């Protein structure tokens, strides 16, 4: 891939910035939609139809805004790292397909639930199963991504493996971990969203307790497995910057403890924020471990980057637009700052 490197070489800093931006989009998506997906998983196990309806209503105005970040991440990857987009997405065909099916079912269920009467049960289940499928397949995709994939040796190297390459014990583990982590986020979200005297508030606490311990185990196993299996991670973690990783780990442990405490003391929004903080630090640590790989062991961010002339053009256009985007997003948030006290939802 040397030749592509030649073209991008002078613009490395732009490449790195875009890589960080995409990381930010992805982690925003995980934090925001993780809670929605997790409450969907919760609804599969604990709820009657009425409660499922209430859970869906609680996210009526926000779920699609949260999903916007996934679309933005996808679009930005295509624009800035087309060489990764064209090979990584092909490699992840089957898990991404399941993610898309899950998203479609969930979107349709959320929209149509409000309009339906007789078919309401179908949309209840669609919401839960769609959430579960999306979360699991997204987790599998993340694990498969960390494993890397085989590339052809042509002029523009591309994925040349099989459709089932993504499926390994490790990717299944990350799939399960994602489901557990999302369930935890979902429980925390529901605690913050419903009145303290409701049944769901109490049930969500039990759920959160269980998921907390499961998540602890799942994440530790994933980290240990990563350490044993992937030299690129091991070398970073015991390399010259080992203290940074240890510090990050310590902060995560402190945040976990604080989240627990906040949850116990019914400071539910604080608990949500701590959880977001944990996800953010974990993701940032993963990014730091990955650098300079885009896909570990397969392509670096510089291999994957758009040749400079395009990347520069993209950046100029985007940098001009981002402030505009942020200011109206802020205005929107400001207008709706008081909205969530009652569920106007979509007109029906």
């Amino acid at each position, binding site marked *: 891939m040397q030749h592509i*490197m030649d073209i991008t070489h002078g613009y490395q800093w732009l490449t790195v910035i875009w890589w960080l931006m995409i990381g930010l989009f992805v982690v925003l998506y995980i934090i925001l939609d993780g809670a929605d997906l997790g409450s969907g998983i919760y609804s599969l196990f604990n709820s009657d139809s009425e409660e499922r309806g*209430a859970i869906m209503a609680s996210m009526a105005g926000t779920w699609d805004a949260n999903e916007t970040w996934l679309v933005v991440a996808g679009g930005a990857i295509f624009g800035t790292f087309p060489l990764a*987009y*064209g090979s990584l997405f092909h490699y992840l065909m089957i898990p991404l397909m399941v993610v898309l099916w899950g998203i479609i079912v969930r*979107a*349709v269920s959320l929209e149509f639930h409000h309009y339906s009467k007789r078919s309401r049960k179908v949309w209840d289940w669609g919401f839960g199963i769609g959430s579960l499928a999306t979360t699991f397949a997204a987790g599998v995709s993340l694990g498969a991504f960390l494993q890397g994939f085989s590339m052809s040796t042509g002029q523009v190297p591309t994925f040349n*493996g099989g459709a089932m390459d993504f499926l390994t014990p490790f990717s299944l583990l990350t799939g399960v971990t994602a489901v557990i982590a999302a369930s935890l986020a979902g429980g925390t979200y529901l605690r913050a969203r419903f009145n303290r005297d409701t049944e769901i508030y109490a049930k969500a606490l039990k759920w959160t307790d269980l998921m907390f311990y499961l998540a602890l185990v799942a994440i530790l196993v994933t980290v240990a497995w990563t350490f044993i299996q992937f030299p690129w991670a091991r070398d970073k973690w015991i390399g010259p910057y080992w203290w940074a990783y240890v510090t990050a780990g310590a902060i995560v442990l402190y945040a976990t403890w604080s989240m627990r405490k906040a949850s116990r003391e019914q400071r539910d929004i604080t608990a949500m924020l701590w959880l977001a903080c944990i996800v953010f630090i974990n993701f940032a640590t993963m990014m730091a471990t990955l650098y*300079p790989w885009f896909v570990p062991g397969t392509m670096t961010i510089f291999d994957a980057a758009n040749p400079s002339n395009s990347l520069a053009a993209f950046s100029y256009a985007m940098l001009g637009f981002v402030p505009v985007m942020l200011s109206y997003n802020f205005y929107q948030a400001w207008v709706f700052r008081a909205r*969530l006290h009652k569920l106007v939802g979509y007109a029906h």
Partner: protein
Amino acid sequence: MILAEVGQPQFSTQITLYGAHRAIYHREKKMTDPTLMIDLARLDFAWITTMHILYPPLTIGLASFLLYSEWRWLKTDNDEWYRLTRFFEKLFIINFGAGVATGVTMEMSFGILFGPFSQAAGPFFGNILGYETITAFMYEAGFIGLMIFGWGKISKKMHIFATFNVAFSSMLSAMWILVANSWMQSPTGVHLEKGLFLVDDWTAAIFNPNFLTAFPHMAIASIEIGLFFVAGISAWMIYKNRHAQMFMRTLTASLMALVIVAPLQVYIGDELGRTVAEHDPAALAAMEGHWHTYNADGTPNTSWNLIAWPDEEKGTNTFQIGIPHVLSLLEDHKWVSTVKGLDQFKPEDRPPVLAPFYAFRIMVAAGGILMLVAFWALYLRYKGKFSAEELQRRPWFLRAIIFSAILPYIAIWTGWWTREIARQPWLVHGLMRTSEGVSQMSIAAEIIWFIGFVFFDLVVWIGAWYFFSKVVRTGPDMDEEIMYGVQDDGFGLVQIPRKDPPEGKPLIERPTV
């Protein structure tokens, strides 16, 4: 290799560690027939695009109409315009939701189904889709939130500004998509270097020749579908005598706009045809089933085929009903001129003929019928018969309008099929073949993809139409209080007495089950 530079050891062995099963798949793949794999990839992509294009044009057209009706409300202060706006807004929301649900798929499918194409064309094509996501999709999503939930929370002026931005951003989104797609039809402003399309001239690449006529054609198509959707539903309400006087407003507005829009679309369509004739003559020849450039006596073949049955093996039509001189009149606006036939192209560079030929004719027929329906409305209006009572005495007119709401969908489908199939065998015209741009996939995975998306996209489609009909059956809400600008009552942060100590200042009040 770059790896050495950044000081990382290479883990090539690591990647293959995980399984002997990879080797098995590699062997399997070599045995599969590439033609079948390519055709299935095209089918997979064709299905998801076909099911996606049902929604965005209506979003664009209906957003413009909502802007108009809200403006009428502000201008006339007539409650009926408010009720109509809110009514059509409900239909808009269902349609938008279905568009997002099917659209997320689109964004990932380029990389999944056409990986090598995404890599090679990424420097231009990926950028343009990236622009679409950020400058149009996010922009639109933000203002749609304001438009839907903003009633009573923002001032009237701010609300119509939000509606304007929804209409504008959805059109902007269409523009970027058409830039990307047209560039595949006429790829200017780039050169191929080391397997990648690098951009030399952004202006030339964005404003490529095909874009200049294809975008207006699609933009007007979106307006036309929106107007016929509004007209069809209004006609239905008048036909059923429900709020007939009120729906005369939207019926008149939409049909009178169509008197201009429908013929304009026919004119722009002709312009696009001539653009295609100039930049991709093989595609035009396929659309017209035009095999022979010259007649047997050496004169240019100017015959336009009304119906034909092409035989691609022999390179001619098995039978045809042709009208002399029409082809040269259409493409060159001349009585006699030479129009390149498919015999000028090598068999491997010829597109399929049957599908573009008939899809194109169906589109043209649909466009023509829609124009005539609009003229019928104009005639009735000219005769002074354009009132609810008079129209209810002419049920066939109302039935024709209701039926016409389906035709723009058919025209958009057949138009896109024509465009995409007639570009074959090229993915990027003249530069990259479809076979070069397709991902090397297993047949089984492609079939699973197809079955899955047939199921899920049909669920979305049936659901959307089911809820459209439900909203139409329920009709506009005539009792709801009208939201004049900012409403104070009930929309502030209501203080509910709390048993527990508050945790700072909660932004979120808890809903009860």
